[in-house]
């Protein structure tokens, strides 16, 4: 078995085990209703985490994700409520802005040769600041299109609801899996994470790939912002505070090596679901407090960082 599969397998087993444990305590958690809510509640996180997966696979990090989500919700709200654009047009504009924003950060990382964390830190400040310059207050979004989208869902057997945002997330994951594993772009991302020098020697267009990766992360953060605005019907500059940390945690818990090169988009999905599971369990339990989520996620993060060190330190050899 390939080494990179091991953390993924561990995540999957932990998720199944945790889910079984949760169900044994709270039998009500075994229902499509809960699963449907899982997908809906974590849709924006999942979408943002997909972008983060590509960034981390390439050996970088993107701290601007949460801020871009917040900015997008404000921009969407402003475009719809103040400029009275159709939501679809507003979404398109917001996605273009977010993508361009990511591309510029990617270009800065490549051409200025600075660590990604400091560039995306500037991006985070800029996006949060820009959002509050647009509107310091929360803007409620009221539009028939929003109401219609929020009310649409596919009924699952067992009474669960697969909402539009849930479906968007699933589509994003499906596309991202193809993109990561079945396209030249995907190979180039892994190549950069493996060794930038080797990748360049092997003909990987380093500049173009780096810019594309951060543009993709920006686009997906924008899409997560769109989903967030659909989910909450509001645009607020402080929306999705700290989501970048949840996204990073989801990616690592999903088995992606934080130093890049190894990992799977599908793992990120399980990472997101595992975080959702912890949250849902705590809600179901009622006696546990919400801060346990952070602690459990932190512990999982630590476990996976350790696991990766063990798995990737000594390499097995075939001859």
């Amino acid at each position, binding site marked *: 078995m390939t080494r990179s599969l091991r953390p993924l397998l561990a995540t999957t087993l932990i998720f199944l085990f945790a889910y079984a444990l949760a169900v044994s305590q709270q039998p009500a958690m075994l229902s499509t209703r809960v699963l449907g809510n899982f997908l809906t509640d974590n849709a924006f996180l999942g979408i943002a985490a997909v972008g983060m997966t590509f960034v981390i696979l390439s050996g970088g990090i993107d701290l601007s994700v949460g801020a871009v989500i917040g900015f997008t919700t404000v921009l969407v709200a402003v475009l719809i409520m103040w400029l009275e654009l159709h939501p679809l047009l507003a979404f398109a504009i917001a996605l273009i802005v977010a993508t361009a924003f990511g591309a510029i950060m990617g270009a800065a990382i490549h051409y200025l040769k600075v660590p990604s964390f400091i560039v995306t830190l500037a991006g985070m400040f*800029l996006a949060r600041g820009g959002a509050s310059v647009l509107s310091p207050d929360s803007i409620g979004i009221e539009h028939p299109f929003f109401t219609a989208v929020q009310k649409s869902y596919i009924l699952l057997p067992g009474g669960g609801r697969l909402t539009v945002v849930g479906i968007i997330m699933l589509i994003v994951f499906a596309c991202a899996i193809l993109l990561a594993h079945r396209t030249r772009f995907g190979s180039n991302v892994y190549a950069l994470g493996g060794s930038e020098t080797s990748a360049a020697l092997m003909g990987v267009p380093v500049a173009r790939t780096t810019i594309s990766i951060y543009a993709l992360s920006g686009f997906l953060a924008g899409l997560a912002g769109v989903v967030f605005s659909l989910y909450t019907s509001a645009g607020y500059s402080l929306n999705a505070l700290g989501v970048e940390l949840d996204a990073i945690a989801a990616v690592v818990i999903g088995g992606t090596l934080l130093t890049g090169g190894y990992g799977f988009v599908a793992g990120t999905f399980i990472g997101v679901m595992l975080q959702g599971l912890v949250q849902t369990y705590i809600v179901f339990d009622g006696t546990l407090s919400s*801060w346990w989520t952070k602690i459990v996620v932190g512990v999982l993060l630590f476990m996976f960082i350790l696991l990766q060190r063990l798995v990737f330190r000594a390499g097995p050899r075939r001859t």
Partner: protein
Amino acid sequence: MTRPTVDLRPTTQPPLPRQRPITSFLTKPQVIALVAVLLVNWALFPGFFTITWQDGRFFGSLIDVLNRGAPVAILAIGMTMVIATKGVDLSVGAVMAISGATAATLVTNGIPAPTAVLAALATGLLCGLWNGILVTVLEIQPIIATLVLMVAGRGLAQLITEGTIVTFSDPLLIFIGTGSFLGLPMPVVIALVLMVLATLIVRRTALGLLIEAVGVNRSAARFAGLKAGTLLLIVYTFAGFCAAISGLIVAGDIRGADANNAGLWLELDAILAVVIGGTSLMGGRFSIPMAVLGAMIIQAMNTGILISGFSPEFNLVVKSAVIIVILVLQSPLSARLFRRLPGAPK
């Protein structure tokens, strides 16, 4: 036992003419930047430099800048040394929350305030030690190692406060946050004392030089017989200690511990202050006073934005602009431009 000695001749090297410290200090770009920001503030608000004496302490916008900038300045003192070793500590904001939560919870449960303060400082040391162990013993990259505590730390703080904002009326804790000494606000006094002490300790002992050596070239440090691991452990522990002090100040200021918001994003401000202070993220040369100055520049901008009537969040835009300017200035691109300047080696 014969000892090999090198043929000694009287040293002829004259002490080199050094720039006078005060002039070289005043011409540093950071000082010029701070003065510029202060002057802009003064233009926006003519009373900016007015300092009054009331109830045994100074008041005024300038004092306010110092006071508000103190928590980040204190974080920056610890962060400077971490960054000098080529590391970074993302967890200091969360550690602030933990420290504040510890002190607040203990005093509300009837523990004497001095004990509570010591306990809070001890938790900070412990958090720093944890980070240091991850970095040295487990050899995890600093940014990743400290991320763990950044994520879990606020949860731990909430665990301590049981999810509520723990308010208190203990005079000692409040004094740390809002009291005054010799007319100066306590946070300013603490920051100054810590800055002076830390600078003295690293510069009067060999600690500073050895930290710089480890940051410049870890491998050469090993070959020269330095114990890099111990140094890193000390540096991260100290960063945790500084964060704990900051956490106490912030808690004392609002008379309560808010596990969710205490120190939120301050780790980033602290990193920014260090970078503005001229310490490279690639490790090596560091200056604690310059990092404190960096924190003051950030706070002076904050205050300027507030008094000019912009929303406080506008600050973030300005901060990002500052980072961008620094990045461009430090990039290889501009290095090539500046290489032609006089003073460059042949």
